[in-house]
């Protein structure tokens, strides 16, 4: 069974901000080669480290975003340019001046390889008044609007006494990386038809700015802006929090399901009064609804409360820490977690796997993260043996039904 990007060569020349893009492309079957300086990519020096001992092959931050890739240590920029010319896709995090200084600007690369897809992921994009500004994920989460809407509600007197908050996990960078992967796939589909490469310009700021759901529309429609404050949560008997959404607006079945659950548990109280069948009455007496839910929460642990709510048709979810997700029976049944051997450590490590279930072209999750320079000789031998085939990975226009071309046919190997 082939993977969608089987045989597609991706050269990755990025700092930690865009490594998640390569991880996604590797999962789709691409041969993702990370080009690193002798001391290793910056992310190899970012913690946490295995057993808290620093070292280029021990960074768990590196592992998380580089699983599935190969690693080459480049001699110099000439070496890097040669590798680029043998690739189908280059993903980098260089600003225009940096790329030019290294001979990696898109015009220079296209002179050698016109079919090359070059994807530049930068904080603010290739141009604009902020193009040279510096950013880490925190700055991007601030400018993009997520932070303004995340955090605790106001304290006494309606004054916010805690700051806006950004999520852990570098979400602005991850969103930019994901959009970069989408754009690369689009560019490969186009190249299959035209043989043409192109430059993709991903602005992480724009990516961050477009992920706050309905906030822009609220402003456009009402002139109001969203202030921060958590969603309603119930505290279960074991102290765990459960996100307890009550989408009453979806129709009368929502409250009917909730009432049945509360009555079965003997905690419905006033809610059994037929007056509560009227949504206007419910809205006006929401405190009673919430009181009944709190009585229910006091009787169960968090995981049970979550399943009780779901049983009643409510979109409830227990708030889990990342490691608690590992025990989820549904994700386990879907084969989400993958064990990969790290032979040099004599152990295997569990990774998050496929982001979706594709039986016809399963997610590729076979290589543990590469040791620094582990594949330098191997990649040089393989990549110099044949030039990339313009037209990979496809034959035929996107809409052509059943145009079953073998994308590898054009590749000399």
């Amino acid at each position, binding site marked *: 069974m082939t993977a969608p990007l089987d045989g597609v060569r991706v050269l990755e020349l990025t700092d930690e901000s865009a490594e998640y893009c390569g991880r*996604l492309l590797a999962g789709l079957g691409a041969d993702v080669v990370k080009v690193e300086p002798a001391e290793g990519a910056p992310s190899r020096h970012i913690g*946490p480290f295995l057993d808290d001992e620093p070292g280029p092959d021990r960074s*768990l931050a590196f592992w998380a975003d580089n699983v599935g890739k190969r690693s080459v240590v480049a001699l110099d920029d000439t070496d890097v340019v040669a590798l680029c010319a043998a690739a189908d896709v280059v993903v980098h995090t260089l600003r225009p001046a940096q790329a030019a200084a290294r001979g990696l600007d898109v015009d220079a690369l296209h002179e050698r390889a016109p079919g090359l897809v070059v994807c530049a992921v930068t904080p603010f994009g290739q141009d*604009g008044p902020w193009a040279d*500004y*510096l*950013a880490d994920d*925190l700055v991007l*989460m601030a400018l993009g*609007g*997520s*932070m*303004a809407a*995340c955090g605790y509600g106001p304290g006494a007197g309606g004054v916010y006494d805690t*700051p806006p*908050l*950004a*999520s*852990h996990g570098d979400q602005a960078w991850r969103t930019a990386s*994901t*959009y970069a992967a989408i*754009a690369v796939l689009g*560019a490969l589909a186009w190249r299959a038809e035209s043989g043409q*490469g192109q430059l*993709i310009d991903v602005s992480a700021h724009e990516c961050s*700015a477009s992920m706050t*759901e309905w*906030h*822009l*529309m609220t*402003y*456009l429609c*009402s*002139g109001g802006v969203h*202030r921060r404050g958590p969603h309603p949560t119930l505290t279960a008997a074991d102290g765990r*929090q459960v*996100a307890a959404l009550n989408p009453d607006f*979806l129709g009368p079945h929502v409250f009917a399901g909730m009432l049945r659950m509360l009555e079965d548990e003997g905690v419905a109280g006033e809610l059994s009064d037929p007056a509560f069948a009227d949504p206007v009455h419910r809205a006006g007496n929401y405190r009673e609804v919430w009181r009944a839910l709190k009585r229910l929460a006091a009787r169960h642990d968090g995981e049970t409360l979550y399943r009780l709510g779901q049983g009643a*048709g409510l979109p409830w*979810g227990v*708030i*889990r*820490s*990342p*490691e608690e997700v590992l025990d989820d*029976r*549904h*994700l386990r049944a*879907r084969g989400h977690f993958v064990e990969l051997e790290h032979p040099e450590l004599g152990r295997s*490590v569990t990774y998050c*796997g496929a982001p*979706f*279930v*594709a039986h016809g072209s399963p997610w590729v999750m076979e290589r543990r993260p590469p040791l620094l320079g582990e594949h330098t000789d191997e990649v040089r031998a393989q990549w110099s043996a044949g030039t990339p085939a313009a037209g990979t*990975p496809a034959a035929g226009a*996107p*809409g052509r*039904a*059943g145009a*079953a071309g073998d994308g590898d046919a054009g590749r000399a190997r």
Partner: protein
Amino acid sequence: MALEGLRILDFTRLGFGAQATLICGCLGAEVIRVESTRFPDAIRVMPPFVPEPGERGEAFGAATLANATGAPSANRGGIFYKYNTGGKRSITVDARHPKGLALLKDLVAESDVVAESFAAGTLARWGLPVEVMRELRPDLVYVSMCGFGHEGPDTSHVTMGPTAQALTGLTFMVGLPDRPPAGWSFSYLDHVGGYLGAIAILAGVIHRRRTGEGQHIDVSQLEPATALSGALLLDAMLNGRPSRRPGFPSGNRRAHPPAAPSGAYRCTGDDRWVVVSCRTDEQWSALVGAMGAPAWAADPRFATLVGRVEHADDLDAHVESWTRGRDRYEVMDLLQSVGVPAGAVQDAADRLERDPQLAARGHYTDLGNDEVDALPLEGVPFRMTATPPHTGGALRRGPPCLGEDTEAVLGEVLGMSTDQVAALRVEGVLS
């Protein structure tokens, strides 16, 4: 455009699924939304509502009234306009009418991709199980997107963005130490799930061209989220350092890589903040210079990054004493001018009206339709030199009014005449 010629039959609702087809539309795919007049997409009829033509800019009063009294029409729900750019078209078909189901089958046969975001089993109940669609179109790429997906023991579970965020660790990752998580106040995972839905569509299409084979790709809202916690999971498993521990999550402070000062600092105005983040000694020195080298900054405790991290509480208080009397954008521009990463905490109004970068990049595209004046809408946040994406899609138009393309699509795709369409309409098939 990159996906020109690709036809997607789009049964998505709400945000998650619609985000995926929006992206494909912006890349040039023809996206045909299949909708219903009797059961309109909830985001078409729920507030906030888009003001009447001519209202915007003068007063928001009428819109506010509409927002309080109920849906003025199926074309005024504001959130619909966030998730349905990309030049999507809209047709209305009653799937419960035998002739409606027959129409849908004909459309499936003419489509490259079927995308949907109903609860698992819904399309099958309509008479469109995956086996039937595959018979109609053997190489169909069928992408389903719903909370728990179509496979697994908990497929009956229902999610909204915050549900999936709770279950996958995302909610947990936002908060101050030793308080309950604050979480996200919006459905971040509707976006992320949609991004992975778009990747599923693209991967399915590319795979089909290489092999001739279609497939069903099942996207849930859970799996796209698990890798978003980065190294936290590995740290817990391998180093025995669970995220559920005292002091974590650590607000805006990050241990890896260490930075200090790093966080949001109060500025002038009502609840206005600026983020400053220094990872290096150079950035720290530049910050000290920009602040006018105050005496406190010479404290030996702040001389090294290790010291600054260790004494971050004191450091933050000092930095905030400087930002407090200043405008957030002035602080940002001043610090950026000397090489210190900094950014104003912006809300939606700021992004639209005060962000010169988004304006210069053409982040917003003014698009409307027959019922709504042009609004500054968003598409995909990247550029491509050879195949520029467009927020209006291949057709360069705004989000569709409900059913506005029914006649055109049935004519173009199925070759039906105006009379045939009119007859179906009389029979109630196109509702």
